């Protein structure tokens, strides 16, 4: 197989091609688009877990986790530029079974995130309408189906839409921030009176650890930029640039969001509301800000669901292309050049879970798969540097301070597993057992249908130690 840096990619001799039409702005839109919804809902459940100060502490610490993720990801993906992102990384660095698992982590994380987005969008509209008997079901179904159709029709249009709606949602946070006079306390913002020494950490430090579970939501999904690896014009430039720019954007948005929300709402309310930024808009007393934040909440949910469909479908597509799953999934639409069968296959699964899970649970499903994936990434970069030391292959980007980011990432993942244990321990065990059983199925049965040598597609020398 060759991964050619033109507009087509030839896989196993078949004419399977995704279009190389994307630039750094699209990569930014994909990453930030998926994540930004976390500022509009989800991060604030960290305040419920440990108080307002805990939400700020995890904002920084989880920011460190994701900065490590972005640094590591930028190096590996700018070198392994193939659809599937971390799946392709695992396939070339660790092995097929790990790749199979990583692809499932990706599909679970993004599909459940899409479900959460659709539920949020439906709930937000229902809350705004205030009509007795109106349910979110039709809004959820319409969101998932319309976005799947958009993804079906082409990646360029999908991510152009994402760029516009993500930018509007982001600008709304900036407008809110400057509208509440952040440089003065007492007029609109009352941080000192809302976060006091007696309520800053109501559960002590165990609350801070517990808050990691939802602290992940500040940034969950930024690593999704790598899924566009086969569709960007210049992976070595666009992926690191788009990913790191996205991470910086999100760190700023997270800090602004915490500051405004913690300065306007008691932590007990902040911890349970589904619309912290919209509520902040309401509390300013400005109808303009209230409506702007309402629309921004919807746009952020749409952008996130849109990016998630894009990423989950590409991970599923990659599994089919390598025969880890039936190759039927590897079909590319002859006209729109999208992995349309994967998009359509995942559609009913997302719809089903949107109707059986609630927002809190769907978020947790997504977080669980995300943290399993980050644990893999911390070990993966160590193996990558060991098997192909610096200078042995051409890297698009080399991240600094290795192995510090990998160690930090691994340690923070362990803390997050403990945080999940404090709330969803049984869920974590159930999901890990699922991954273990499906791994046995793959290793002892499904792998026999996979061509061995064809899986390694990079023009690299033999890895050291083999």
């Amino acid at each position, binding site marked *: 197989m060759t991964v050619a840096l033109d507009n087509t990619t030839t896989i196993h001799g078949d004419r399977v091609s995704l279009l190389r039409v994307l630039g750094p702005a699209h990569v930014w839109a994909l990453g930030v688009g998926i994540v930004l919804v976390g500022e509009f809902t989800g991060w604030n459940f960290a305040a419920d877990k440990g108080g307002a100060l805990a939400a700020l502490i995890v904002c920084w610490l989880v920011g460190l986790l994701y900065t490590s993720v972005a640094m590591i990801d930028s190096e590996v993906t700018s070198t392994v530029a193939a659809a599937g992102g971390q799946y392709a990384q695992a396939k070339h660095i660790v092995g097929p079974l790990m790749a199979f698992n990583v692809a499932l982590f990706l599909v679970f994380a993004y599909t459940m995130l899409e479900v959460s987005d659709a539920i949020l969008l439906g709930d937000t509209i229902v809350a705004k309408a205030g009509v007795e008997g109106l349910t979110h079901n039709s809004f959820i179904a319409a969101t998932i189906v319309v976005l799947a159709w958009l993804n079906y029709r082409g990646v360029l249009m999908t991510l152009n839409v994402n760029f516009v709606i993500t930018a509007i949602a982001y600008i709304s946070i900036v407008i809110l921030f400057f509208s509440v006079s952040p440089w003065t306390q007492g007029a609109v913002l009352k941080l000192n009176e809302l976060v006091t020494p007696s309520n800053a950490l109501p559960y002590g430090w165990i609350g801070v650890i517990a808050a990691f579970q939802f602290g992940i939501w500040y940034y969950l999904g930024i690593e999704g930029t790598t899924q566009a690896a086969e569709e960007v014009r210049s992976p070595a430039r666009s992926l690191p640039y788009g990913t790191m720019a996205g991470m910086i954007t999100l760190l700023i948005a997270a800090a602004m969001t915490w500051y405004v929300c913690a300065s306007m709402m*008691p932590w007990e309310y902040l911890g349970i509301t589904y619309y912290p930024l919209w509520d902040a808009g309401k509390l300013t007393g400005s109808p303009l800000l209230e409506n702007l934040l309402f629309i921004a909440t919807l746009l952020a949910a749409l952008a996130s669901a849109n990016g998630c469909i894009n990423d989950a479908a590409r991970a599923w597509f990659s599994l089919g292309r390598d025969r880890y799953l039936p190759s039927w999934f590897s079909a590319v639409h002859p006209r729109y050049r999208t992995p349309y069968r994967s998009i359509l296959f995942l559609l009913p699964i997302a719809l089903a879970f949107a109707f059986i899970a609630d927002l809190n649970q769907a978020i947790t499903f997504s977080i669980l798969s995300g943290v399993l994936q980050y644990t893999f990434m911390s070990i993966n970069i160590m193996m990558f540097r060991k098997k192909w030391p610096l200078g042995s292959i051409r890297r698009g980007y080399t991240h600094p301070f290795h192995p510090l980011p990998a160690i930090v990432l691994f340690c923070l993942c362990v803390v997050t597993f403990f945080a999940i244990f*404090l709330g969803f321990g*049984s869920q974590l065990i159930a999901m890990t057992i699922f991954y273990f059983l499906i791994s046995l199925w793959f290793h002892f049965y499904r792998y026999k249908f996979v061509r061995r040598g064809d899986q390694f597609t990079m023009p690299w020398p033999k890895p050291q130690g083999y």
Partner: protein
Amino acid sequence: MSRYKPPEQSKAGQILDIAVVVVAIFVALWLPLKLGLAGAAKSIDPLDAKTWDALGQNATMASIWEKLGYTPETAHDIIQNRFHYVIDWPTLIIMAAVLIGYFVFLFRASDREYREVINEKFDDK
């Protein structure tokens, strides 16, 4: 080393494999919901006196609650609904063992498969 030739899979086999994966996904995600296993231990610590002061809310907090449409009575169940973090050591040990066992299996089995890939890829050259 001779190249491994995978068997061709029948259409029925492919459909069966898809069904296995889908059923497994639903069981893993849906069963814990159905069994009520998901969710943290959170319960209401009731107070007799339902006033802003008794609920630990100062004047600024109380004014915001009221702006949001709450009274001390309606806010009581939100404010007093607290987590009770208890470390259940047997469950923690089981969780750690499951996670470590899973990752150890994953890396060891992957490495076995990876060696086949590398041997075939580079011995062909």
